[in-house]
């Protein structure tokens, strides 16, 4: 029998403006190629055939077939069937990142908060310094042979509980020194609590800071008002706080923007505004649909993508001048594309990434704190790997077919567990309501990467490569 060949799962994207030919993305391996028009025609023609023998291919096209075989896009039919990706056993993954919900309390009442005003349900409460210190030691001791571990100071608003943060960082640094490891500490804050003591602490330990800010005053104040009787917007305090932080630590924080669907049309304006306030980077997240009112319409989804595309366009323009536009979303996507990272799981939740609440209970990730369905042990007894395994299996259940035929699977691997949980289990939507956006966003990243690659020596590519290395 003649050996039969098949085109492996792939997508062809038209090249960006000013580039010849097209871009070929190998779905199984996340490999990315620039192809000429003849190769595009070949893929188009033979892609409709299923299996074929090389004898059927015109001699003039043999060169293309050989090149595609080298690229592992044309494969022997026997090998075209995809083996399912092996599942990762949580018990085999060392702990790399621990998120401390150091204060399950917050002085703001953001409209889209997924943590119920910072408490994750129940009354406001804070972590004791002793527990925080034990957690930091737990992180270092459970990290196997990893040279570097990350402690994330999170809340609620973590700076409401400075004693616990200080205890955790001191204990973590001591344990890391003892074990010859590096401790990386980061903090996510609403930016209203940069007191002199907090600034001293952040400066002394070189803590990477992310500040939530949602754009110009009208948008930020609509999203992020103070709680309590006083109420009122937090914009002015955040901007003043960021200025103090920069002055005291000498380092600019990253900005974390969260926008509700009716604000997505203003993304370019928000990005420019926030960048102008002196942030190192700006990342923009669509608000998680904690309530049906936050579910976007198709028009709003289109506006979100158009907004991101606009900023991506700016990114390419800046890159032409040799500058990096610090748009975190795009930089992270480009880094993944640069490597060709293939993921078997969407994120590290439960696989080296664990969150601990104020009482010492462990959860699959910080967003699931307070939800017993996603509780995976506690500090006293350690991580319950069987429960983590069950949680991850439940999240993956029913997705294998759709993901197995999706061209974006290598980079996405199913999407955010929390977002999926909210949409499917809480709001009762069908699976896959994020897929269209994710696919379009990854496609935008591929086109952008293709434009940068038109100049292989591009300094922005070198920057992206360093980011990919961490």
């Amino acid at each position, binding site marked *: 029998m003649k050996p039969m060949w098949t085109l492996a799962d792939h997508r062809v994207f038209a090249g960006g403006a000013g580039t010849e030919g097209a*871009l*070929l993305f*190998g779905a199984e*391996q*996340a*490999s*990315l*190629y*620039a*192809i*000429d028009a*003849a*190769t595009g025609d070949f893929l188009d023609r033979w892609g409709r055939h299923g299996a074929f023998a090389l004898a059927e291919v015109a001699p003039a096209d043999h*060169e*293309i077939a050989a*090149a*595609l*075989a*080298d*690229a*592992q896009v044309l494969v022997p039919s026997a090998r075209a069937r995809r083996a399912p990706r092996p599942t990762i056993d949580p018990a085999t993954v060392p702990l790399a990142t621990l998120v401390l919900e150091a204060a399950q309390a917050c002085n703001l009442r953001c409209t889209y908060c997924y943590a119920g005003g910072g408490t994750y349900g129940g009354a406001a409460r804070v972590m004791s310094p002793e527990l925080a210190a034990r957690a930091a030691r737990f992180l270092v001791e459970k990290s196997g042979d990893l040279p570097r571990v990350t402690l994330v100071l999170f809340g609620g608003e973590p700076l409401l509980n400075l004693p616990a943060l200080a205890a955790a960082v001191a204990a973590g640094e001591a344990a890391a020194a003892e074990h010859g490891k590096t401790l990386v500490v980061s903090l996510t804050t609403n930016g209203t609590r940069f007191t002199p003591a907090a600034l001293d602490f952040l400066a002394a330990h070189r803590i990477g800071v992310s500040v939530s800010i949602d754009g110009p005053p009208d948008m930020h104040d609509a999203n992020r008002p103070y709680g309590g009787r006083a109420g009122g917007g937090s914009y002015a305090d955040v901007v003043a706080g960021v200025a103090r932080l920069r002055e005291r630590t000498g380092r600019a924080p990253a900005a974390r923007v969260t926008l509700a669907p009716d604000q997505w049309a203003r993304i370019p304006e928000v990005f420019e505004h926030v960048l102008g306030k002196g942030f190192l980077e700006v990342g923009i997240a669509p608000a998680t649909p904690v309530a049906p009112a936050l579910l976007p319409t198709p028009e709003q989804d289109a506006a979100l993508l158009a907004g991101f595309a606009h900023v991506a366009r700016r990114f390419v323009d800046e890159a032409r001048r040799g500058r990096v536009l610090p748009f975190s979303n795009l930089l992270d996507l480009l880094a993944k*594309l*640069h*490597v*060709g*990272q*293939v993921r078997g799981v969407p994120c590290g939740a439960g696989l080296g990434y664990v969150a601990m609440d104020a009482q010492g209970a462990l959860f699959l990730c910080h967003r699931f704190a307070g939800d017993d369905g996603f509780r995976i042990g506690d500090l006293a007894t350690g991580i319950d790997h069987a429960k983590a395994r069950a949680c991850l299996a439940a999240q993956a259940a029913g997705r294998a077919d759709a993901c197995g035929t999706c061209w974006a699977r290598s980079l996405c691997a199913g999407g955010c567990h929390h977002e999926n949980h909210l949409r499917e289990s809480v709001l009762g939507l069908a699976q896959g309501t994020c897929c269209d956006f994710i696919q379009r966003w990854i496609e935008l990243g591929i086109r952008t*990467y*293709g434009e940068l*690659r038109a100049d292989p020596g591009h300094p922005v590519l070198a920057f992206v*490569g360093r980011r*990919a290395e961490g």
Partner: protein
Amino acid sequence: MKKKRIDALNEKAKAIQRLADGEQPSAAALAERRMPQGCTTIFDTGWETNPRPTYPVGNCQASARDFHGCVGDCWWPAQMPDGLTNHREFDVQCPNVARDWRNLKYD
């Protein structure tokens, strides 16, 4: 220089390309049709064939060695099933090779 039809862009594509470049020499050796490729369907070891220009040309080295070891007795070694084949219990079907060899049904 002729423009390449396919250009690896990201690191993964470059790694795949390097793999392909590394494989080129063995693929070229296979393409030389000076001798039949491999031996029988059962003993086919690919292209590790008898390198000497003597009989059995193109058989695998193991079979070639057996051939020269046994040729004086006029006994053909390759018909002898063994544990390498898919007939691990050939002796049940074929207790006497000289008499019962027709019973052996190779896949």
